């Protein structure tokens, strides 16, 4: 029984870490611009697919992987510059549609360019499972969890200890005030998109050896990441991480104990309950409308 529980936990945490990275991407962009970026999942896919493409093209990992992070970051920057900045301040729904449009463009272009097949990457440090109390853990899972944890720490440092990070936080609290004190909120927008895209791409690369990837892999990551971000409370970085992990773990336990047919519904039932009973998510801040 313990082995079984542990197995579900490993499995849930690994996949949950990717959701957490996706959720962080949502959060960073949401804080900087109030936009829910439905193209976030595509950056995850882009990372995985580009890593496969560059390694297949014969580039060494040390070159291929940074490239597979850099290019999506640029794509994120481009997205902010070309599609989000021109309609700043538009209605929520308009912004949602634009990000969906971008996700279609990215997905469609990759499908035409790299084809419709599934692809994998070799695991970074071998395929020999580690046995812990009867459960098995893949070394690649440690990579996913480890790098995610480092990323979260790095982001915490960035937002709380560096000037650019603080500027971005300030913008999320009050755009007008941030502009008054001389923060370039346009640049904040660009940085947030590039960062989110880069984080997503990195996550995509890390999980590809476990999960494989294909041109449409981003849809699911995007949706689950969004669920994670809302579970944690939109706008809260800690919430995003906890929410993402929670979605992954609950999914794994749901598949194991309840019903594997309905496991995909479980995160969404969870989100409805959370929204009904704690509408700001687990860590969201209460905002009072000022009239």
């Amino acid at each position, binding site marked *: 029984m313990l082995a079984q529980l542990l*197995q579900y936990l490993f499995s849930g945490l690994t996949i949950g870490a990717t959701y957490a990275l996706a959720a962080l991407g949502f959060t960073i962009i949401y804080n900087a611009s109030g936009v829910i970026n439905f193209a976030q999942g595509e950056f995850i896919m882009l990372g995985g697919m580009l890593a496969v493409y560059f390694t297949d093209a014969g580039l060494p990992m040390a070159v291929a992987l940074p490239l597979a992070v850099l290019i999506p970051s640029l794509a994120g920057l481009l997205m902010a510059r070309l599609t989000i900045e021109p309609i700043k301040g538009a209605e929520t729904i308009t912004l949602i549609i634009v990000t969906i449009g971008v996700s279609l463009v990215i997905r469609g272009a990759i499908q035409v360019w790299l084809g419709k097949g599934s692809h994998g990457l070799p695991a970074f440090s071998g395929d020999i*499972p580690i046995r812990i109390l009867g459960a098995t853990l893949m070394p690649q899972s440690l990579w996913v969890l480890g790098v995610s944890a480092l990323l979260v720490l790095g982001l915490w440092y960035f937002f709380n200890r560096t000037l650019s990070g603080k500027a971005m936080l300030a913008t999320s609290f009050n755009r007008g005030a941030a502009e008054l004190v001389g923060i370039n909120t346009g640049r904040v927008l660009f940085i947030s998109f590039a960062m989110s895209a880069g984080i997503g791409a990195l996550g995509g690369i890390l999980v590809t050896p476990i999960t494989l990837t294909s041109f449409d892999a981003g849809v*699911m990551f995007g949706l689950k990441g969004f669920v994670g971000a809302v579970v944690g409370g939109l706008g809260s970085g800690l919430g995003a991480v906890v929410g993402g992990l929670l979605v992954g773990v609950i999914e794994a336990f749901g598949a194991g104990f309840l019903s594997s047919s309905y496991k995909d519904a479980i995160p969404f039932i969870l989100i409805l309950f959370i929204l009904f009973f704690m509408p700001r998510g687990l860590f969201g801040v209460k905002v009072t409308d000022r009239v």
Partner: protein
Amino acid sequence: MTIGGIALAIGVMSSAIAADPIKVGSVLSVTGPAAFLGDPELKTLQMYVDDLNNQGGLLGRPLQLVHYDDGSDANKANAFAKRLIEDDKVDFIVGGTTTGSTMSMVPLIEKAGVPFMSLAGAVVVVEPVKKWVFKASTTDRIAAERVLTDMKKHGITKIALLSDTAGFGQSGKAQTELVVAKYGITLVANETYGPKDTDASPQLTKIRNTPGVEAIFVFGFGQGPAIVTKNIKQLGITLPVYHAHGVGSEEFIKLAGPAAEGVRALAPALMIADKLPNSDPQKPVVSAYVKAFEGRWKEHVSMFGGQAHDNFFIVVDAVKRAGTVDKEKVRDQIEATKKYIGTGGEVNMTAADHMGLDMWSLRMLEVKNGAWVEAQ
């Protein structure tokens, strides 16, 4: 060039122009989740339509392929079928990549009366028999029976079924549940996974902890079975693993890596073309298809493209025999197809059987040293 030569050339050209093309309609899932099925299917059709046209067409008329992509959405398939029938006025239709797409087209096709060769997997396409609907490709029931036969032969009586939640797996699951008792086998675990799932270890852990499981039967296609296979290895499960007919491709071995070793899967002869003995009746046709496809598209063949090949040539042969594209006559000739050797096996249609394949048309393959070989 002589004047006669020029006249002849002009004559040939003008007759080619004058002859109305025979229109081949097709709705395939070239994008969306079923894209890796629809893609080789379309490529196969395009290739052979071009081929036939280079050889002078069919009944002296050129062929024209009218193709629409349903994006793996059954509702779109229905609209495109309408377009093929009403607007393009095609002579026959090959396609409907998925069962959902096929079934959404069937009511229109039956009403309009157009010969229809489906490429979908589920048995509902041809059972009950529908006047205009044929499919010369394996059904999930045959696949289930073929796997269960093999299990029985190996003395396996208790199995775990793991099927995907897409149409292929769900229909396969239903068929397996239906016929399993016939082979004296019981399903002691019955789990599913999503076609886009990235991890199936919770389900497999559950299977591992179910007492008495002697083999795992995975019913799915695409990347899912590869992930499942990897997870099985990772969890240290050593039970025999059987896959249905959705994985027999080079891609599967590449994706699953070393975990694929020893896995059994169903596939048509096409997947082991180069290893078939020369005495095998399917040898010429599969070799020719592999050569043509890989030569033109520079990628590995898949059984799905092979199915498109078989279905397309069955209707082409029927048109040749009928000597016309009259829909009723072509339909009758398709139904009269006998001993057609395709990439998927020998097809013998009757009024009661619009599929015409038996369970031995699928070969039981095994991964040995990173390649598919026929299992002993």
